[in-house]
């Protein structure tokens, strides 16, 4: 029952939120809903058995409303459940026009995300995959920056093409299942010829690659992240990109074992190229949001490469890093949002000396940035170390090439810290004040998560152990 609640609570409360006229009431209502969802998610984590759910939906088509919370699903549900209350608290003081609709759409996207992470039926999965996209499209187009309409439209059409290709792939596999069923287990048992497998593999992979995004399908990402309202950007880059990685591990690797081993080389080369390429572009950025966007492409690239190495360490690293990247990047977006709201600019060239005015912000930003570089004792170190280890086992030269991006990450991240926080104050930062209490609380929670998971990552490894073993067993 718990998995259904994780979807139903945000869905129903979200629909109610549309009708709340009073901004403050809408905010509190959404926050309450997010906190309840978090509580439910925590009980799911600590329950011993694998929670699942099964109900009749479309018997004629062979599709059932089946949910399954394996280790990876539970971890990502936890990430979703943790992120939303933090996001709501962090942007509590922001004013959005039509507040009710804003929070309603946010909650609907949360429902969609939960559904994606829990679905154990291909058609249900496809439904939620789209359901997560549509609210985000409206959020970006209604509350975004100047170029929002064109940019988010590009994003929508890009991902929609991907989804439709995936639908064709799903249909193809469905007609090759023995019992004509969309169930995950039936999909796992499908046997395709090598030629079919490698063709259908790409139909799925393009959909997931667009979502992650992997070079060369990434062009929608920086613009969309920049133009979206920051609360939505947090959802997109903190949680939504994990949909792509999750989907590869849940659907792609087990259904197409041969094709994914065969194409691994191509994909890893693409990912590593993307890592270096994105890092180089990040160095040249003058905008906090764009810098974080490109740095995010680099981090996702590493996760994608590590997934296709097909070894235990690599996959464990991906699992941990999915959670950690979500935590870190949300922290960075919060800082970007605070700076933009307070000072009216996101450009490094117009900032400087903020550490003198806002020391608390400075400390917390530095923690987040160090996590972004994957310094030891921060959470990312564990994940990236494992992933590099996996990549090293697969191919030394790939690991070396990917390693360059770590150095580049240090370059652009430290450069950002230096330009925003240190040096002399400039016109924009002259009047700056310390960040408000709610943001401090959120950033402190995130910073604690960064350190705790950096020192003691074992719980995350234990949580996702079953998924890792299940994936490797299929090979």
């Amino acid at each position, binding site marked *: 029952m718990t998995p259904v609640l994780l979807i139903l609570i945000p869905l129903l409360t979200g629909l109610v939120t549309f009708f709340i006229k009073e901004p403050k009431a809408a905010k509190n209502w959404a926050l309450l809903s997010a906190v309840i969802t978090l509580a439910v998610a925590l009980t799911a984590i600590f329950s011993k058995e694998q929670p699942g759910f099964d109900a009749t939906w479309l018997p004629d088509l062979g599709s059932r409303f089946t949910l399954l919370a394996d280790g990876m699903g539970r971890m990502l549900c936890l990430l979703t459940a943790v992120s939303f209350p933090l996001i709501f608290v962090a942007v509590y003081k922001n004013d959005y026009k039509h507040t009710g609709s804003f929070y309603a759409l946010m909650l609907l996207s949360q429902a969609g995300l939960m559904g994606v992470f829990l679905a154990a039926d291909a058609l249900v999965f496809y439904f939620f995959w789209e359901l997560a996209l*549509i609210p985000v499209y409206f959020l970006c187009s209604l509350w975004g920056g100047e170029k929002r309409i064109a940019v988010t439209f590009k994003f*929508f*059409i890009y991902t*929609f*093409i991907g989804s439709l290709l995936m*639908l064709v792939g799903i249909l*193809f596999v469905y007609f090759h299942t023995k019992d004509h069923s969309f169930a995950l287990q039936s999909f796992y048992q499908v046997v395709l010829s090598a030629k079919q497998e490698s063709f259908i593999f790409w139909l799925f992979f393009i959909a997931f690659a667009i979502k992650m995004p992997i070079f060369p399908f990434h062009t929608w990402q920086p613009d969309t992240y920049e133009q979206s309202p920051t609360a939505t950007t947090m959802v997109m880059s903190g949680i939504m990109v994990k949909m792509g990685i999750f989907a590869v591990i849940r659907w792609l690797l087990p259904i197409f074992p041969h094709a994914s081993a065969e194409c691994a080389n191509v994909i890893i080369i693409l990912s590593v190229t993307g890592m270096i390429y994105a890092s180089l572009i990040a160095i040249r950025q003058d905008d906090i949001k764009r810098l974080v966007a490109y740095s995010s492409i680099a981090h996702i690239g590493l996760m994608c490469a590590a997934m296709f190495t097909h070894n235990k360490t690599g996959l464990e690293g991906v699992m941990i890093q999915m959670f950690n990247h979500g935590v870190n990047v949300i922290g960075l977006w919060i800082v970007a949002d605070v700076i933009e709201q307070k000072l009216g600019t996101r450009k490094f060239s117009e900032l400087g000396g903020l550490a003198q005015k806002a020391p608390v912000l400075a400390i917390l930003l530095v923690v987040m940035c160090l996590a972004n570089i994957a310094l030891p004792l921060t959470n990312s170190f564990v994940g990236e170390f494992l992933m590099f280890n996996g990549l090293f086992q697969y191919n030394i030269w790939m690991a070396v090439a990917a390693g360059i991006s770590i150095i580049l990450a240090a370059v652009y991240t430290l450069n950002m810290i230096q330009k925003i926080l240190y040096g002399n104050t400039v016109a924009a930062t002259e009047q700056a004040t310390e960040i408000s209490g709610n943001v401090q609380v959120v950033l402190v929670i995130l910073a604690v998560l960064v350190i705790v998971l950096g020192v003691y990552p074992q719980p995350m490894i234990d949580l996702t152990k079953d998924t890792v073993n299940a994936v490797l067993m299929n090979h």
Partner: protein
Amino acid sequence: MNAIILSALLGVVMMFSGIVTKNRTAITYIAIAGLIVLLLGNVLNTYGVFVLHIDTHSMLNFEKFGLFFNSIAIAATLIYVVLSGRDIEKVGVNVAEYYALIFFVLCGVSILSSFSGLLMLFLGIEIMSIPLYILTGADKRNLKSNEASLKYFLMGAFSTGIMLMGIALIYGATGSFGLGGTVRITAATGLPMHTSFLEVAGLLLLFVSMCFKVSAAPFHFWTPDVYDGAPSVFTSFMATIVKAAGFIAFVRLFDAHTEVLGPTWKLLLAFVIIATLLIGNVTAVFQQSIKRMLAYSSIAQAGFMLFALYGGNDLAKEGILLYTVAYSLATIGIFAVLIKMKDYTFDGFNGLAQKEPVLAFTSTICLLSLAGIPLTAGFFAKYYMLASVVDAGGSLWLVIVAVFFAAISVYYYFRVIQAMYFKEGEAATNGVISQGFKTGLLIVAGLILLFGVFPSLVLNAFYF
């Protein structure tokens, strides 16, 4: 049978109601009552209750598929009249005649859904088309409406000629007006197919004229002008119920005949499908008027409906029924809103969400359904079409091409959503929007969402 008899009778009743009362609203109510009677009559037919027992000498064949389609068509007309009845009253002075013509069209639709010989097919097409030529020109003081009507009539007459030619050739080859007579004989003896040149030529001519009726490329040229010129209320009717009926006839006709044409048939059909998708979708992108965009989008949708012919299996038959439901609901909804607008351009819709949130919300649902987004009926409609072709096997490339065109269609459907929600402006409506109209629209949107989650509601009604 009931539907054919009742619709003809009701058409006459509507004509005379114009003499009895001059009250337009009353006439609309009579039409609504008539449609309900017609729907009941058709449903009773499914249970074996007949108004009159007539021996059709097996020229008509009342099977579930056709009867169920009748119910869909009549129900869609009912929804259409309930939503847009007020606007039908405003087209001109002869309100009763308009409704009479609509009933005559429904008579043609019921023949098309149950013909079992080429003669009946021809009669059905004619009975359906001739009232439409008149309805297109209903706004008789408007030059564009006259032009559209004349154009439609000339082109329609031409395609009818081609159809007759085809029927004549087939009759010459097989000596019968029956459907797929030659196929049956060959199946019984188990001998390899022997087809004459005449029969193939006749079938190709039939194919061309049916393509014309459902506005498949490259026989689509009349569609944008006629849809644009006709009074918007009647465009809505033509683009939904009439078009769907054309498809049902198309599927029924070629269901039995495809084997005669052999493998070339699939290639020919694939060419038509791709041409239709290409022309419909790409041209729709460049339109400035939403009415014209919807005309091209209806061509694009026809491309998807042709998949039912291509797949040619049970999934396709179920799918085409679901498609007609989804497409008709969404198109009737979006046209009902369009008719209320002063300005038909995209800019005319700017800021509608601020002014009329209900109208904006319901048209968004309709547009999402046309685009085939999950949770709307349009998704499962497209799903069935794609699935039938994937199931038939060997044509995955066609499905992938179609999918790219579906993504293009998102572009122009979402432009309307962008205008309504994301752009500032003063969307002007004709007069005040009544509460009843809004409720009607919300019910349509609700149905679209309901069928989007449980498409089996439609299909179970088919099998029950």
